[in-house]
């Protein structure tokens, strides 16, 4: 199984992104890249867009397509994009929501961030921008996602990610400083 997981956040729908990832060209690209599943978390008010663009199809181009509105925790879905057992490393496409960026980076799945032009949030944009500069994520417009999936066959951002000095292994120390131990 190789999953492409698309998440738009719980609070708003991102119709353009849903339309794009369900377009025949995009589905074909995914199939060419040996993806087997496409799962879309379409957000509040996104079910209509999802069903109309998916056209009631459960599968196309050999891809199994699924969708749901939202869940309190997406951990389970995100973990399905990691490499374990017969599961191959997949791909996450996300609106620029901080929660999903952080969750995706923690599990080390390649991430394409697509900021929603209708919803501008200053500090979210700042974060997406700096992560793009430091090559942790790939930022993209709705129209460009397909070319990104084509161009970067594997989107191996995780190798850089593994060796980055900013990630701390253990951080028990800073709490001891404030406890005032005798030794």
């Amino acid at each position: 199984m190789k999953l492409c997981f698309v998440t738009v956040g719980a609070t708003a729908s991102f119709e353009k992104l849903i339309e794009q990832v369900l377009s025949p060209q995009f589905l074909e690209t995914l199939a060419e890249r040996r993806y087997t599943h496409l799962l879309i978390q379409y957000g509040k008010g996104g079910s209509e867009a999802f069903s109309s663009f998916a056209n009631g199809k459960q599968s196309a181009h050999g891809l199994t397509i699924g969708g749901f509105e939202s869940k309190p925790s997406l951990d389970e879905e995100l973990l399905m994009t990691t490499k374990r057992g017969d599961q191959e490393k997949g791909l996450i496409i996300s609106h620029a929501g901080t929660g999903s960026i952080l969750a995706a980076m923690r599990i080390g799945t390649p991430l394409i961030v697509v900021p929603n032009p209708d919803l501008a949030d200053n500090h979210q944009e700042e974060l997406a921008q700096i992560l793009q500069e430091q090559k942790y994520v790939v930022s993209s417009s709705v129209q460009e996602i397909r070319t990104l999936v084509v161009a970067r066959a594997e989107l191996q951002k995780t190798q850089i990610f593994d060796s980055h000095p900013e990630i701390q292994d253990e951080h028990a120390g800073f709490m001891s400083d404030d406890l005032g131990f005798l030794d």
Partner: protein
Amino acid sequence: MQFPLASVSFWDLALCLSVAIAVFGSLIGLVIFLSLEIAHNSPVPKWRPRGSPIHLLLVLGSGGHTAEMFYMLEKTYMKEFTYRTYVVSSGDNFSAGKAKAFETQRACPDDNYNIVTVPRARRVHQSYLTAPFTTLQCFWACLNVLCGLHPDQRLPKQYVTPYPDLILTNGPATAVCMALAAKLIRLFQYVSGFNSLLRSSATPRASRLRIIHFESWARVKKLSMSGVLLLPLADTFLVQWPALGGLRAWWGMKRTKYAGWLVI
């Protein structure tokens, strides 16, 4: 006979009153300023033997704040903290659930924890007109929690005081209320410690209620609103992006510390 007050005009009275208010206000301001300054510049007293019971209080903000808190705790050595109190805002079932899940997953489930609920300081989209009242309510509840007076609290007997040893926050408004409450209690302790100082006790005094705040990973170039408010209050202020390191509330205060990514 003339009534003396009659000769005092309204404007004289207004002037006297405003002078009195200004003097009183600046006195209070000076006390707050000095106490914050002293608190930030005095070293942590070394008094705690290794292995003594430690009570950690964690303020769970909501959604993203709570998620970051537990991402960080996953990588923290927790065995030292023999008792944990989780503070959640009313109606935040997500945070309470996360706390329970974290406690059951921990390596040694000793069940020495408690989840207490405080009223929300400001709901999303709540008017700024009513916010001060709800914030005051939240502050009062935080004060009660710190003093162990919250009805849900039942701290084991080996803990000599109800005060937590350490307070860990990462925003938003409830964290500010908690930090203010902790500072107020510490101010009272400090002032009441003056007479014991006269009796010259050589042993360093126990220090509790110390506040560690870590700013959200999402904050890259600018502190959050709660971060700005916590800057003079937190004893240790950690940030996760280099651009936010070395900031301070004003001259002479402690600086923020760049700690790398705590949540990944």
